[in-house]
């Protein structure tokens, strides 16, 4: 039983890591601010989500599992707000969204 749980959490954490990689690659490759924001939030919710899921399986007590879940929710909330604010500021700051020519 323990090894199945172990493997499952390992797999989840690796998937999470993959999404972080996707986020970073997106950050470097995308042409302008607004696309990069998508990459950023991908790494946030999905990448961290899988890592958190993997860790919850291994979490000792219920309290620490709940704490890790809370951390994920907080990151979701503040990440989304930050992305929204940056996008609004960039738009007002005169940065034109990228158009495929």
């Amino acid at each position, binding site marked *: 039983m323990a090894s199945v749980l*172990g493997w499952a*959490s*390992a797999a989840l*954490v*690796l998937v*999470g*890591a993959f999404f*972080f*990689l996707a*986020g*970073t690659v997106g*950050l*470097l490759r995308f042409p302008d*601010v607004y696309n*990069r*924001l998508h990459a*950023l939030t991908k*790494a*946030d919710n999905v*990448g*961290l989500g899988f*890592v*958190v899921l993997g*860790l919850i399986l*291994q*979490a000792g007590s219920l309290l*620490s599992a709940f*704490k*890790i879940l*809370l*951390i994920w929710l*907080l*990151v979701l909330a*503040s*990440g989304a*707000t*930050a*992305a929204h*604010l*940056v996008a*609004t*500021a*960039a738009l*007002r*700051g*005169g*940065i034109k969204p990228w158009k495929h020519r």
Partner: protein
Amino acid sequence: MPELYLGVATFLLLNIMVGLIRILRGPTPPDRMLTAQLFGTTGVAILLLLASALSLPALTDVALVLALLGAVATVAFVLRAWHKPDLDGEEE
């Protein structure tokens, strides 16, 4: 298992290093700021992984605080730091 978590933590650290390029190259300040925001999230992930890899439960609290305060710098940047040069900013 801890060995794997440490490996993933190292991988995420390398992610941050690569992300630094965007801060250096990013044409506009908002690019840089959102990269810093991404670092915050990656930092939280690394801390959580270290917490279970090194069996240091206190690092979860550190991750909790970092998650809470990750957005403060971005908010400060957007509201206080980055103005469009001629926009004098209407009084709130």
